[in-house]
Every structure is written in structure tokens, then in C-alpha cells.
């Protein structure tokens, strides 16, 4: 059974993701900051880490970079709340969401999702990143 670690300082968001992933049959743990996440990963590296970008102390981008260097096999899905992005090019005001999700990609995240995402989008992203 694939194991997933969720890192999000918004407790309700983390819990909701766990609920979805557990329901879908994944083994899922939730932590509310990157330090706790790193400790959990050190103990038992998961298959996938779902991480928020904006968090106190160590933010999601930092976490992505650490995971890329220390655990290159761990897949990362970066999530963040914000405005629209997609086919449109960089626009000054949508830049925040866009910029840090793009930065997350550069830092090593394989998937990026904008909050609030649909259950189906989350599951699709997770399934794409699993080996089989």
C-alpha cells in the first residue's frame, strides 16, 4: 500500500486530504509543519509527500529542495491557495500563486495543485506519481 505524507499548516486542509486519500485506500499521515514532516520522512520515507508552499519557518519550496537532494525517489505534490493559473502567461497579479507553484516545480515538485482542488484532481495527481 502506497504511503503518503501530508504537510500543511492548515489543519482542516490536511485532515480533509487525509480523509480523501484514506478513503481511496492509501496509507496517509498528516503533519502541520515542515520540521515535523522531515522527522517523519527520516523515520519512514513515504512514496509521496503532499506539501503546502506557504508555511512558517521552513516553507514548502525549501522542503521540496531538501527532499530532492536527500530523498530523490520521494514524489512531491505541491499545493497552494491562490488565483487562477494555467495556460495564461505570467500576469502581475496572479503571479503569487503562479510564481510559487512554478518555483515549487523548479525546486523539485512533480505535481502542482491550486487550492481548492477537486477530489478527482488530487487522486489523479497521486496516481500519476505512483510506480504502477
Amino acid at each position, binding site marked *: 500500500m502506497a504511503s503518503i505524507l501530508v504537510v500543511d499548516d492548515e489543519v482542516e486542509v490536511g485532515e*480533509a486530504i487525509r480523509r480523501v486519500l484514506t478513503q481511496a485506500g492509501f496509507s496517509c499521515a498528516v503533519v502541520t509543519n515542515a520540521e515535523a514532516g522531515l522527522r517523519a520522512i527520516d523515520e519512514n520515507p513515504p512514496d509521496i509527500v503532499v506539501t503546502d508552499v506557504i508555511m512558517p519557518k521552513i516553507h514548502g519550496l525549501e522542503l521540496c529542495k531538501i527532499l530532492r537532494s536527500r530523498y530523490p525517489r520521494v514524489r512531491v505534490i505541491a499545493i497552494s491557495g491562490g*488565483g487562477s493559473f494555467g495556460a495564461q502567461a505570467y*500576469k502581475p*497579479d496572479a503571479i503569487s500563486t503562479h510564481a510559487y507553484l512554478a518555483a515549487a516545480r523548479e525546486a523539485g515538485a512533480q505535481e502542482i495543485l*491550486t487550492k*481548492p482542488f477537486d477530489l478527482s484532481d488530487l487522486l489523479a495527481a497521486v496516481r500519476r506519481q505512483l510506480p504502477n
Partner: protein
Amino acid sequence: MERLINSLHGRLLGVVLVINAALAPLLYLGVAAIVQDGYAELFVNSVRSYSRLVADQLETVPEREFESRAKDVLDDFELSGQVVFAEITDGERKVHGTISPLVPPQQRGDDFHFGEHSDQVYYISHTLKSGDHQAVLRLGFDESPTFERIAAAKHHVLRAILAFAVASFLVALWLSAVIARPMERLQEAAKAIAGGEVRTALETQSSIREVVDLSRHLDHMRRELVGTSERLQNEIRERAVSEEKRLDLERRLQHRERIATIGTLAGGVAHEFNNIMTPILLYSQVALDEVPTDSAVAADLTRIVAAAHRARSLVTRILTFSREMDSQQSAVFALAPTVEEAVALVRAIMPANIEIVVDARADTVPVFGDPSLVHQIVLNLCTNAYQAMRGSGGRLGLRLAASADPARTGRAGDFALLEVSDTGHGMEPAVMAHIFEPFFTTREVGEGTGLGLSVVHGIVSTMGGSITVESTPGVGTTFCVFLPGAPEQSQQQPSAAQDVA
């Protein structure tokens, strides 16, 4: 009246009048005296000659015929009209001319001067000698014809003097008209110019050189005046235009600031809001999987999901609204004018202690993208430079240059280099390593979003370019933005957009 006295007309006519009034009587009196003296002398001379003639004739009369002949002679002379009294006294005998019965005043002797007596008769006596016989001839001449002649001559003189006076008056009138009329016309023209009617050329038809010269000088002045006033008007117009431009820039800046504020606010709200919406959407969708699809709960949950989707699109719309500014399409454009536009905005917000030096003369390749994003690059880099020089002041430099050095641009090809430098506090290498990361800021909470440079980085990446930074603490910082030339970039554009999706 005072106007008339002070006018050229009045002066000239007045002078002529005074001269005439003073001179004409003197002239008249003088000429009249000469005329009278002349006539009187003529009269006296002729009377004397005449009486001599009479005496001579009488002296030739023989003694014995004297009585009868004398009367005839006297009558003859009386008949000639000049003599109004003739008498010969010979001892006790008196012979009278018969024609004039004039009785002379007995007391009167001979006259010496013309018009000595009011009876207008001039008496003259001659002693007649014929052998030893003596008689006295006394003749009286009428003075009145000569008086009439003198009066007539005086009359002529008077008329001539009057004619002269009138003529001189007319000449004065003509002269004053010749001088004064062009002057008046000039005066009217000057008045019109003073009243603002400066377009009409000043022309005076006059044969007087001084008036023509004056007119020419005045017209020269008028032309100068017209030129000056046109220059002034142009200046005022230009000033109004530049003021309008400044106001327009200010409006655009305010608009941008407002949009930026809305964007920041909307971004912050959206972030919170989307975090809240995430569990709502996910729990509803999980719950939907666990209830029968035709149940009332499923219907309720579907409505919640639909509402959550609406909320999500609302946030998107708010962010789209805040993005409305300058939503230009991507295009090939020259950097220099775009950079200069942005610099105009920068100038409007920079304090006086920051000197802005722009060198956008270089001939750089045109680039492909949204010009408003280049504005954004310039504004963000300049804002950063300003923050680094705040308080101390300094020099903000912008420079455009061509660059085709792969060692600097990252790959081969023609690039446009936009260099933004400041003389601010500079950065430590530890800080420099993080400046392009989102949310990285060295400023106090609330002063900066920490997104400025990451925005620049994002835009530059999207346009297929690169950005480098050099900084020395205490000396300053220089950002170099390399943007690829248009043909290359327009090919790269789709892949960059995909990368974002």
C-alpha cells in the same frame, strides 16, 4: 476743448491764428500809412505843378485883357474838374471863376499837407507878376477823389492781407492734416494693438519721411509683439500639454497602485478563502461517494460541491478583475519606448534625492511578449533600487544595450540587455542567494510582499530570458535582465506557456 488745444491740429492752427492776429493789423497799418503818404505826396506835387501851370498861363495874359481873359482861364481850369475854387485878387478887384461859387474861409492861408482841413479842399496861392503889376491867384483843389483812391487802395491792402491770412490758415490746415492724419491713424493702430488686435499690419500712406519711418518702427514693434505673444501662447499650450501628460501619468500610476492594492488584497483573501474551501470541497466529494447517488443527502452534497465550485470561480474572477490592467496581447515590440514609459512612472514616484539616469539610446533587438510585463520588470527593479537607497539617496541607473555573449545570456543569439543599477546599501551573498524566491524579503513586515523580484524572475523566464545580479555591500547593486530577440522568442513562447500549465 483741451483735447483740441493739445492736438497737433489745434496747436498748428492756433499758432497760425496768433501770428495772423498779431501781424495782420500791423501789416495793414504800415501799408495803409505808406499808401496814404504816397497818395498825399502825389496829390500835393500834382496840385503844385497844376497851380504853377495856371499861374504861368495867367502871367502870359496882357495887362489890358487881363480882366476878361483871367475869368476865362479860371473857368477853363474849373471845368477840368480838379479845381473847385479859383480867385484872383488884384488890389481891390477880385476875379472869381464862375463855375464854383465856393466861398473860402477868409482866415485860411495856404495848406501845407494833404487833408489838413475837414472841408477836403486844398488851398494854394501864387503871386502873379506881369511887369510891375502884381495879383494873387488862389486855387482850391478837391481832395475827395484822392481820399477815395486812398480808401480804395487801403481796401485792396486789407483784402490782400485777409486773403493771405486765410491762405496761411488753409496751409496750416493742410499741413496739420498731412502730419496729423497719419499720426492719428498710427495712434488708432496702436490703440487696436493695445486692445489685442495685433494681426493687422500697420500701414500709413504718407509722403513725410519721419511719419513713414515712425510707422515702420511701430509695425516692427507690432511684429515683435505678435512674435512674443505667439511664443508665449505656444509656451502656455506646451505647458498645458505637458501638465496634461503629467496628470495622465499620475492617473495611470494611481490606477496601477489601486489595481496593485486590490491585487494584494484579493491575493491575501483568496489564499485564506481557498484554504477554507479546500476541506469543504473535499469532504463533500468524499461524502458523495459514501451515500447512494439517488438519496436526498447526495443531492444536498452535490449542491455543496456546486456552491464550492462557484466560490472558487468567484475568487478567480476577483483575481482576474485585479489583473485587468494593461491586459495587452503579446506582441513584438521595441524595448526602448516601453522602458522609457515605465521610467516616466518611476520618475513620478521617486523622491528628489534619487537621481535617475537613463541611457536607452542603444539599438537593441525587438523582443516578444506583453509590454506591460516589461513595465512590471522596470517598476519592480526600480522599486527595489529605491528601497536600497531610501533615506541616503543616490543614483538609479537604467541602461539598454545589445548583448550576444552566451557566457552572460546563457545561450547563443541576440539579446537585449536591460541593466538597472543603484548606489544603495548592496547585499551580502547570503541574501543575494534568495532574492528571487517568492516571499523572500529583507524588509519589515507589511513593507514588502517579498514577491517583487520573484515576479521579475517569473516574467523574465516566461519571456525566455534570464536575470543576473551583482552586488557589493555598501556600494550598490546591478540587475541585468537579458531578453531574447523576437524571432527566437516567438518560437519559444508555446513551450513556455505549456510549462506553466
